[in-house]
């Protein structure tokens, strides 16, 4: 019998304040998922302190990896690859996972695969829903990221929209601090909002001029701060639960609104709102400038855009999507990232999807928070494509989604 060999990957994640390691078989079967959180320490400081995060990762990294291997019942010899988050994130924090993974890969002779943190978050859906396959649209929302992405294929993405200022989770943290709920803001606002009226105060739903899918949250945040100021000047007490609920509703409205607009437009054959991206150049400095990029994307720096406003083969993003979908419609929508644990966002996105006949996917909270199982999953699909990293793999704090981290 032709039995295909299982691919076993150790994933390592240290991009922010969670030290994590996991063993994943064939991308979807999680044998272990160890997470060592530093939240208690950072709570003392009202936010993640990068230097402290780096120090704690250094202290915990081996124990977490060892625990993941032991829980999985695997030895290093059983591994096909060692995968690690190489960006984006806090550079000092990323470096711990990357350095440990490289030391481990060098010592074991195993293949090394650098993984994009957001690709990891998206991939968490493959673990939670074994039947899920691309294409689908995914909203990635976390403390550091807000991306609306069309997943064309495994490891192939088109960014439809992204935040122009604060990440959604960042806005939660800032507002939570302002109304005295403290850190971390996401779960605390979620909890308070359950006791409040989401329409007590109508905070503006921010829009980005000239972009249908990009997000802005600094306006919502500012109007909350202005409201607090006004109330303070008038000597009136605020209802914390109402502010939390109203702020949360404004953010959720924007997220759901943009996401559903994208699905509807694309399914109506309207690709106008999707910006052409720069031609993706591999990071490898030795590669020639004509190298074919991995994906098209909006955003990037001014110099990126000068590289060419079309995807590989001279194809526009709209044409690329037309070719990908080949007349078929988007029927699946997924949430990912830490803010995907927000109960209002989950409930309202689910409702919006069901109303439109879309299958809705959202990983359980343990796979929404930063974890390494998602890194092992994303790495599996890179592994199948033959993508490998060298021992010169670096931490890339500003790595963009889809930017190649592999030697070409």
């Amino acid at each position: 019998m032709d039995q295909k060999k299982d691919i076993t990957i150790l994933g390592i994640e240290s991009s922010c304040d969670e030290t994590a390691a996991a063993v994943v078989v064939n991308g979807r079967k999680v044998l272990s998922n160890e997470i060592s959180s530093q939240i208690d320490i950072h709570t003392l400081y009202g936010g993640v302190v990068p230097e402290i995060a780096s120090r704690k990762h250094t202290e915990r990294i081996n124990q977490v990896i060892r625990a993941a291997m032991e829980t999985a019942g695997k030895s290093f010899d059983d591994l096909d690859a060692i995968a690690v988050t190489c960006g984006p994130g806090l550079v000092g924090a990323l470096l711990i996972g990357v350095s440990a993974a490289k030391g481990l890969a060098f010592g074991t002779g195993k293949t090394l695969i650098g993984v994009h943190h957001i690709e990891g978050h998206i991939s968490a859906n493959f673990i939670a829903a074994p039947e899920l396959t691309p294409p689908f649209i995914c909203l990635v929302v976390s403390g550091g990221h807000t991306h609306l992405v069309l997943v064309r294929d495994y490891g192939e993405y088109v960014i439809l929209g992204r935040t122009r200022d604060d990440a959604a989770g960042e806005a939660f943290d800032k507002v939570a601090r302002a109304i005295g709920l403290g850190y971390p803001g996401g779960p605390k606002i979620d909890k308070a909002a359950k006791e409040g009226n989401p329409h007590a105060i109508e905070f503006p739903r921010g829009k980005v001029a000239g972009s249908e899918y990009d997000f802005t949250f600094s306006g919502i945040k500012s109007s909350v701060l202005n409201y607090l100021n006004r109330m303070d000047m008038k000597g009136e007490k605020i209802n914390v639960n109402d502010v939390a609920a109203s702020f949360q509703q404004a953010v959720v409205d924007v997220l759901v609104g943009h996401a559903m607009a994208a699905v509807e437009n694309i399914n109506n054959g309207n690709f106008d709102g999707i910006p052409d991206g720069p031609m993706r150049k591999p990071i490898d400095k030795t590669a020639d400038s004509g190298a074919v990029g991995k994906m098209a994307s909006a955003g990037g720096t001014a110099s990126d855009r000068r590289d060419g406003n079309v995807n590989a083969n001279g194809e526009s993003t709209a044409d690329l999507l037309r070719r990908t979908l080949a007349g078929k419609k988007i029927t699946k929508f997924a949430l990912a990232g830490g803010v995907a644990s927000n109960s209002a966002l989950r409930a309202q996105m689910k409702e919006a999807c069901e109303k439109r006949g879309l299958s809705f996917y959202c990983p359980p909270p343990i796979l929404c928070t930063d974890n390494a199982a998602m890194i092992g999953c994303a790495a599996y699909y890179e592994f199948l494509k033959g993508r490998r990293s060298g021992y010169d793999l670096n931490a890339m704090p500003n790595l963009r989604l889809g930017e190649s981290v592999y030697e070409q």
Partner: protein
Amino acid sequence: MKIFAIEASGPVCGAAVMDGDVLVADYNILYKKTHSQSLVPMMDEVSKMVELDLKTVDAVALTKGPGSFTGVRIGTATAKGLGLALGKPLIPVPTVDAIAYNLYGTGSGRVICPIMDARRSQVYTGIYCFEEDTERFAVLHEQCVVEIEKIASELNSLGKQVIFLGDGVPVYRDRIAELMRVPYTFAPSHLSRQRAGTVAALAMQYWRERGDQCFVDADAFRPEYLRLSQAERERAAGIDTSQTIHRE
């Protein structure tokens, strides 16, 4: 006894292999601060050049700090990963000791004083000598972080000739001239910075003196920064850090 040594605590990135009394490989670069990209490729290169079977390595030596926080951690995390892979312990060496150990044969008439630029008007430093008769490497003042004035005054009170070295020399050369009341010299460039080979040699010396006592479990090892993070310092001083901490 075979030791694989790595150095990334400061401006130098390096890898070395020591087998018994023989320093088989010693590869160092002092070029930009790209240790995260250079270190493991250098380790790989060294291994290939001397056909090292990693399974024969008995311990992984490294400088345990102080130094660049990030550099110390790159070395530490890499050493931990390697130690975990091989199932072998670490031999951590104080960074300042490892710089001092570049020199030899000072006798009791002279002392060695490495200085590393620690910013904020301070240096990472210590005082060392090789004893007159035994040539034993002696730590007269353990590594610490102090103002240059403080270490200069201590050296003056010892009354012995001083050999300065380390990356703090170019930063403090003029200040040293102003402060020193005893004769002093500066080590030549090939001996004046961290070297992976020296880390290996000092680790081997520890093993000869203490045997397995010099081993530290790779999982449990923590670097010595000699300094708290800025947030911890501010918090200890009663400053509200919630306004200064941002996600990056």
